[in-house]
């Protein structure tokens, strides 16, 4: 069991609306995943200023101030600490910032990269993590959250969700894959590296590879259905898209709610019940292997 929540806001909304809503949603799926929790935030003006490159890195032992100094002469560089994650932004090319972080913190897991994206994750009670991420006060236009009950690999920050292996792309998973090691070997042979032995990371890498091949997100997820054996409800996001897919027998729960100017997805209705206007929203269960994509 794991818990998934996600929300894409469209149109005008208050600056702190997203963080408050995704926090409330995540609390409702806390019991589904007491081991770890994580969120991806898109477009938080404070964490990731518009138009700037952004890297989220796991470096709890490095103070934010010391890290900025260690990264050297990068104009406009900023480091924000959220629990053990450091979100680094600067007005330079994304590749330049990513390379600088890799050089300054060799071996530190990169949790997410790409303009506008911040990935915060940690181990322990989701409620405590929501507080230490100061999630309720965060903003942006799109968020993905996950609470993890580990079944197949270790409980560490790097093993928790979301998995982000390509700039701007995030994936969260409820379920388990049976053939992930086979697909991991194929992806490794194609030159793709992995941070953990987690099965969900393979799905993230597979989708990333499909997008690199030129597929759109819909096609990438349909290819995933053909290649992956196992149980899955997946929520996959890019800076402009919000997508949901489930396995052939829909073994894991998923509910989608479409409001007037938002779309949300959650493992359980109680997480949707916190959304304003849920009473008037269209709520439905995605059918097996049906790919749903919303763009903004």
């Amino acid at each position, binding site marked *: 069991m794991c818990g998934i929540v996600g929300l894409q806001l469209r149109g005008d909304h208050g600056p702190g609306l997203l963080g408050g809503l995704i926090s409330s949603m995540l609390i*409702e799926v806390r019991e589904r995943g007491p081991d770890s929790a994580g969120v991806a935030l898109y477009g938080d003006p404070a964490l990731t200023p518009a138009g700037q490159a952004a890297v989220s890195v796991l470096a709890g032992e490095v103070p934010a101030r010391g890290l900025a100094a260690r990264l050297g002469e990068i104009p406009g560089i900023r480091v924000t600490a959220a629990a053990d994650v450091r979100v680094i932004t600067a007005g330079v090319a994304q590749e330049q910032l990513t390379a600088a972080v890799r050089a300054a913190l060799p071996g530190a897991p990169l949790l997410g990269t790409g303009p506008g994206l911040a990935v915060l994750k940690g181990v322990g009670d989701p409620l405590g993590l929501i507080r230490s991420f100061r999630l309720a006060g965060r903003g942006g236009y799109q968020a993905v959250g996950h609470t993890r009950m580990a079944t197949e690999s270790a409980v560490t920050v790097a093993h928790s969700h979301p998995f982000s292996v390509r700039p701007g792309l995030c994936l969260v998973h409820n379920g388990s894959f049976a053939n992930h090691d086979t697909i991991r070997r194929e992806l490794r042979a194609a030159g793709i590296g992995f941070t953990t032995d987690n099965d969900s990371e393979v799905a993230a890498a597979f989708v990333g590879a499909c997008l690199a091949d030129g597929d759109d997100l819909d096609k990438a997820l349909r290819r995933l259905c053909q290649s992956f054996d196992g149980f899955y409800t997946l929520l996959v996001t890019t800076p402009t898209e919000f997508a949901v897919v489930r396995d052939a*027998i*829909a073994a894991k*729960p998923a*509910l989608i709610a479409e409001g007037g100017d938002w779309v949300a997805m959650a493992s*359980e*209705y*109680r*997480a*949707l*019940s916190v959304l304003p206007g849920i009473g008037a929203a269209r*709520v*439905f*269960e995605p*059918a*097996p292997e049906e790919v749903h994509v919303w763009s903004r």
Partner: protein
Amino acid sequence: MVTLTGDARTEQPGGPAVLDTARLGVRAVNERLRALLPGSAVTVASPAGRHNLAVGLDADVSVLIDGPAGYYAGGLSRNASITINGPAGWGAGENLMSGSVRVRGDASQSAAASAHGGLVVVDGHASLRAGISLKGATLAVAGDAGPFCGFMAQAGTILIGGDAGDALGDSLYEAVIYVAGTIRGLGADAQVEDLAETDVAAVRALVKRTGFDHIDPEKVTRVASARRLYHFDTQNHDAY
């Protein structure tokens, strides 16, 4: 631990009573529901998709869950009449023994799973595996039913007012399924059979009971087990 006080037995027959889930929590709401005197009618307010509401009731009481319910709403109960004024999560009316559970909305997966007796009614659509392992209860769905409806259902009746999804009645035992709309696909060992007078009468009675008057009892399709799957065959003895 919630202590059950004498106060919990003050809900008298006919007297209005509201139990607020947001204020009391699920455990206290269920303890107070179980303490109701026969004939009582109670509204459970602010369910907000919480799980396990009105489970294990044992008396002839009427419970209105006034909003969306989470998993297993009304499950394990007998004698009670439970209505959910909204959609219900997985396992609505799971293992129902008698009485009724009515969902005034859509039901998520595994509605009426393993239900032994009583009636589970879904006014909207039912998701996958509705009536899975049904053991004698009746499940009536006004709208469509998702894939694997009636999977391994052993006894009882399923009525689908709309269309049935893939693998209908897969590995059926002795439960019978009636479908008013189309059937996307039959599961292993499920077959369409001729509609007898007794079938029409049974569907007519169920239509009357549920108010599903969009269903024409003479035009439903009967699906039952071909009984090839669950009998051992002596000529295959060596393979066993």
